[in-house]
């Protein structure tokens, strides 16, 4: 073996950690951020320094200080405490909407794709219809019709969300359906349900997981956006989008809007990194030979 090849190979070896870090480092970082927020959400009652609804107008709009690390809002409530409690709603809404949306989408899209024919056509047209609307406006209209509140806003988001998953599930099922292992299952005489849910779906789950993970971030942003526009949560429950909205006109009191925005950004980045990482990990093409 020649010298140069040797050293190149050695360098390659030595940089194994570097490569791991380049490929999975961001994913690990993302996972860490997401886990951190989940921990914060769970531990909110323990770690929040003040009750989130403790109004004290004599302490309103205080700048960050030792007592209030992130300052106080227009009602003198501790921004940090509200941020911590707010993580519960954002994470809950984001994860639940996407989880239900994905389950619903997979069910509808998967069955439609597997059944084909009229069922598939119907589903595709239904998704077309939903995709005709600007998502925010449709969600707003529905949320307005149902009334303000976390559950109603989540329902509105679901209506907007499922077509995406249904279409993805459909295309994934279509890809899998023509695979020989599915034909083998047909030849074995297995029923459609068994083939769809035991064979096809587990194989289609990978790309779905990626999309689901990336979408949790988008769902959190959307929920925050709807809250920002005044839907979403009923006060005094803190929610990040609503907190940004409360602080938006307060240019001098930058902390009121800035921190909740950073919170959204960080958790969404976390989910995005995580999703990207899972994608890289699942996609052999992005791996080196």
């Amino acid at each position: 073996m020649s010298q140069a090849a040797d050293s190149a190979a050695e360098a390659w070896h030595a940089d194994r950690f570097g490569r791991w870090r380049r490929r999975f480092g961001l994913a690990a970082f993302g996972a860490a951020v997401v886990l951190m927020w989940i921990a914060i959400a769970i531990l909110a009652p323990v770690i929040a320094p003040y009750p989130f609804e403790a109004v004290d107008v004599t302490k309103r709009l205080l700048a960050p200080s030792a007592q209030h690390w992130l300052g106080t809002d227009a009602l003198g409530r501790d921004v940090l405490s509200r941020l911590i409690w707010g993580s519960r709603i954002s994470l809950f809404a984001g994860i639940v909407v996407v989880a239900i949306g994905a389950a619903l989408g997979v069910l509808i899209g998967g069955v439609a794709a597997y059944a084909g024919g009229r069922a598939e056509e119907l589903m595709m047209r239904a998704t077309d219809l939903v995709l005709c609307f600007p998502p925010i406006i449709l969600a707003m209209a529905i949320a307005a019709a149902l009334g303000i509140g976390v559950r109603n806003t989540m329902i509105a988001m679901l209506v907007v969300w499922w077509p995406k998953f249904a279409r993805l599930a459909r295309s994934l099922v279509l890809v899998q359906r023509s695979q020989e292992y599915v034909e083998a299952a047909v030849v074995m005489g297995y029923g459609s349900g068994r083939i769809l849910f035991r064979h096809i779906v587990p194989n289609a789950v990978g790309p779905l997981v990626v999309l689901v993970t990336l979408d949790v971030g988008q769902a959190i942003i959307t929920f925050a956006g709807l809250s920002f526009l005044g839907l979403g949560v009923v006060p005094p429950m803190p929610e990040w989008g609503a907190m940004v909205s409360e602080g938006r006109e307060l240019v001098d009191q930058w902390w009121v809007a800035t921190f909740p925005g950073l919170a959204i950004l960080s958790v969404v980045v976390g989910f995005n990194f995580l999703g990207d990482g899972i994608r890289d990990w699942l996609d052999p093409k992005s791996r080196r030979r």
Partner: protein
Amino acid sequence: MTDSAPLLEVRNLRTEFLTDAGPVRAVDGVSFEVEAGATVGIVGESGSGKSVTALSILRLLAENARIGDGSRIAFRGRDLATLDEDEIRRLRGGEIAMIFQDPLTSLNPVLRISKQLVEGMLAHGRQSQAEALRHGIDLLARMGINAPERAVSGYPHEFSGGMRQRVMLAMGFANNPSLLIADEPTTALDVTIQAQILDLLKTLNREFGTAVLLISHDLGVIANVCERVLVMYAGEVVEEGPAEALLAEPRHPYTWALLNAVPRLDQEPPADKRLTAIEGAPPDPSEPPSGCRFRPRCPFAVERCGEHPDLLPVAEGRKARCWVTQAGERLLKPSTAAAVSAPAAEAGQPMLSLRNVVKHYPLRRDALFSPRKVVHAVDGVDLDIGRGETVGLVGESGSGKSTIARLITRIQKPTAGSIRFGDIDLATADRSVLRPLRRRIQMIFQDPYASLNPRMTVGQILSEPLRFHRLVRGPEEAKARVGELLEMVGLSARAAERYPHEFSGGQRQRIGTARALAVEPELIIADEPISALDVNIRAQIINLFVGLQQRLGLTFLFIAHDLAVVRQVSDRIVVLYLGKVMEVATARDLFAEPLHPYTRSLISAAPIPDVAAERKREHIRLAGEPPSPVAPPSGCRFRTRCPVAQGICAEIEPPLAEYRPGHRAACHFSGQA
């Protein structure tokens, strides 16, 4: 540059890939020469390093590949390994051209042929745009493309595979190269098209004086084209010599094994239908075995093989990397059982009987009112399979052979016709009728990588049908049965705990076979079960099938495009073309006296790894390509390419007439070609 120096001289080429698992040496010390105007072949299985060798010459390797220092690739005396990027670029497509395996993906789908043809010439700056285009059109004509003026303005998808490979050749010859490297140029093509392209290669070599370095896994192809041959195994050249001598009498056990693993069209298959297969698989290139790399699989290995042999002369103009032959020993031909007549599977009632089976696929409508176009995949096929018989179904791509497999197994429903299995017509049976039959008809699939559910362990894959069809009681029994099945296909029972991706292609095909056997079927449809495998593994799998059939008394429908393989395993053979049966006969009769011109051209087009035999053989070259199954020709489907076609062939469709007992052909001029 001196006249005496070879055109290309490769010395001690080492190429390795840097992977996460560490460096993998794909090519390890390869040396050879190509004289000007010569034809040199490199043969080997996948992973042998033959393609990497070819790519190393032009430095077209992937990013993570490194050519080791000390490697010398001298072209006309210049070391290509040390040229800078710009200099090597000027050589590419100039002095040295290269064409690749898959003509379908080698052309850029979104660019016109003209652009792709001309850009290579412009890059070397010898011609103006107009000159280049004219030259390109000339070249296309030279490569046998009709109406080249029109062809240049087309897009690649408008051409068939064979045509694209001709376009690729035209691109290769655009700058009058002195060396053409052809990396598996015909592997993706049908056998009749392959013959055309190989002929073209030979002609080009002769007329342009261009040296050809041909890379192939197929000894027949190499024998057809090359004067000299290198055999590669595990990154090394194990044997080198003139093609004729090397193929006639190999001096390395690996060459020997390769030659004997391939069924030959010019020889009767042995009575036991078995091939000489060596056990095992090529070594993992990241951890080559010490000593001779072939030793673990070598039937001739001796004690000395623990040391690594060098490539040394063993005869005039021949070298081998083998202690045994270097010591002067000969490698004897394997003993074969004498040919015996086909077993009589005469028994009256056939097990499966297809009558006038039709499958049409409607294409998506372009617009609401435009007529639906239909692919005539299978267009009125009659076929009988007797109990215990092996029927071979052979045809080129688009012949409808895989569709027939899917109709019998009712993965798809036929458009018309009947498929009788016992008393039941599979063609019209509904789900409840089919379910109990499923167990009795099983299928083995083409792609060992796609046919096993990657999310299930082998144990789950095998036990699921057992439980589903209630063939076992409880998990204990299932586990025992899975173990049995695995051993039956030559795998260890421990394989049950692992996932498909942990196995090689051949092993997966064994697992797929075990799955089919799990439900104790009577009929097994094997759809191109070996076409994705390497030569030696093919032989192993064929032997497995043959053994299973004899042991379990199975009935087989064996589908393949390779005539020699079909002949090896089948009792009777059905030749398919464009969804219709052309000829049916016992394996013996078909080869002894083929009646249909298509059958004859198929036989003659398949190359034989024997230079002398190849020279003597009749060569019928079919013109053109198979027509589209969307608009099949009127009358006889084969007439557009038939060497004996006459007026009547376009008007009247020839019936599948019986010429002698059990030998039928659909031709107005049967046996006259």
